């Protein structure tokens, strides 16, 4: 089974988010592999490979500093890696760069995380599926594959929907698809020798631009309510907050 996993880099989840004008302050920010890419997409791809044999390739669209994240994916178990050498500012660019690389390589499944935890776009997977003209199985929390037919559980509002698919497809991974794997020392050593191909980016233009950032309005401060007086809390929720 020939599998491609898209991975990206995001600020760590405890990061303090601040901006100067319309740029994100990166000072003091440490980066991780996007959790949906690492914990679920990559690990489930590796499990399928272990079950059916084949290869797992990871792809990242980004500058050389992203190699840290790519090496981690290799340490977790991917066979080889590709980095499209550019700094994208939109999902469209990422999707086109991945498509340009993947289009003639007959991948059985292309995996993405369901969204990045920074810009929360959830766009790249759907774009890739449309470019490749294959089904898009989004928000998958379970994937079984018998070698011919894949059975996918997709998260929908309030539960899951089960679908089967023949032939290649793009999948976006949500929580539950797999269990996080921690790279071991052998994996880390081997990752240094695994191939990481750097390919030049073709010309793709962005069609959206972030023109500014703001932080949500701060809360006025908490009003503490006596635990013996829940009637007062209910009154405030009704009369002051007007939410019940």
């Amino acid at each position: 089974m020939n599998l491609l996993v898209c991975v990206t880099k995001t600020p760590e989840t405890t990061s303090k988010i601040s901006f100067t004008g319309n740029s994100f302050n990166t000072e003091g920010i440490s980066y991780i592999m996007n959790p949906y890419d690492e914990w679920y997409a990559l690990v489930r791809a590796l499990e399928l490979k272990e079950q059916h044999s084949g290869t797992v390739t990871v792809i990242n669209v980004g500058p050389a500093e992203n190699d840290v994240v790519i090496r981690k994916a290799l340490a977790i178990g991917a066979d080889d890696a590709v980095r499209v050498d550019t700094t994208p500012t939109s999902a469209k660019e990422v999707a086109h760069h991945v498509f340009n690389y993947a289009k003639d390589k007959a991948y059985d499944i292309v995996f993405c995380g369901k969204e990045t935890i920074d810009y929360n776009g959830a766009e790249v997977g759907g774009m890739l599926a449309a470019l490749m003209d294959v089904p898009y199985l989004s928000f998958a929390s379970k994937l079984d594959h018998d070698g011919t037919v894949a059975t996918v559980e997709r998260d929908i509002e309030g539960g899951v929907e089960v679908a089967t698919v023949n032939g290649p497809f793009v999948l976006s991974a949500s929580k539950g698809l797999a269990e996080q794997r921690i790279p071991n020392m052998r994996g880390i050593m081997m990752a240094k020798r695994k191939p990481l191909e750097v390919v030049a980016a073709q010309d793709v233009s962005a069609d959206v631009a972030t023109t500014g950032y703001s932080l949500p309005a701060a809360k006025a401060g908490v009003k503490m309510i006596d635990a013996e007086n829940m009637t007062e809390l209910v009154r405030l929720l009704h009369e002051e907050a007007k939410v019940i």
Partner: protein
Amino acid sequence: MSVLVLAENPKGNFKKPAFEAVHYGHLTAKALGTECIALVLGSADNPAQLGEYGASKVIHLTEGFDAYDSRRYLAAVTQVAQQIGANVVVLNHSSTGKSLLGGLAVKLNAGAVSGVNSIPNTDSGFSVNKNVFAGKAIAEVSINTDVKVLTLMGNSIPPEQVGSAVEVESLQIELPEAKTTVTGQNTVAGVVPLPEAELVVSAGRGMKGPENWGIIEDLANVLGATTACSRPVADTGWRPHHEHVGQTGVAIRPNLYIAAGISGAIQHLAGVNSSKTIVVINKDPEAPFFKAADYGVCADLFDVVPALTEAIKSFKASN
């Protein structure tokens, strides 16, 4: 020129998300000086009612949408958008809307923005606001293409009734063969899904175990709220993972979020801090969640939650 809105009809019924999307489409169309047209796929109860929220016309395609197939849905919305010359396509920020967004961007050569929570600013160009970092910040994004595709975050713009029932038409389109087969659905019946819920009662590790969740469900029932949980609770299997709210779970913006026994780690706050009103119940006065709350009760949740349930019961009985 027009604004096309996909009005979702799960199990054939329109619910709040459909009305929100249509009303958002109506407001967007007004800003652009054009009309809002609603699209309904598959069997649906009374599509004409979408006119009440501002659609000037409804296009209803009845055949071929009983089960979700990404390529068929994508082909349908694409062809309708092209035939009516839509320059804005509005979807819900739902499993269906998010699944279609990227594909529509490709097929319509459109700039896409997901999770929008403001009416487009059309003073110069076209820009919208969306939450980023799961609500830790808000980004203003401008779209530079002729056609724009948006998913609308739930509970952002309240739907209003502005019109009356309108005409329902069909259109001729060509659908590709389905490549996926839906074999089943497993959803919780009778509960408002978290992204749509206006009232949410959530609990965390302070509950000590899944067997204690009865008091949370009682409070949710008396309020008509949806239940949610923190990440450790979903990870240990105390609660189903679709209830997990936070940076790596569902990001929500209900009117009321009640959190019991959740300390308020930064990742949890990220997913809920767009809530209009936050009530925190925690026996630890140092719990960071109190800083993000509107109302706090510092006491044992096993006393507070049942007392709050009783207080709401009496309130409901006397109103």
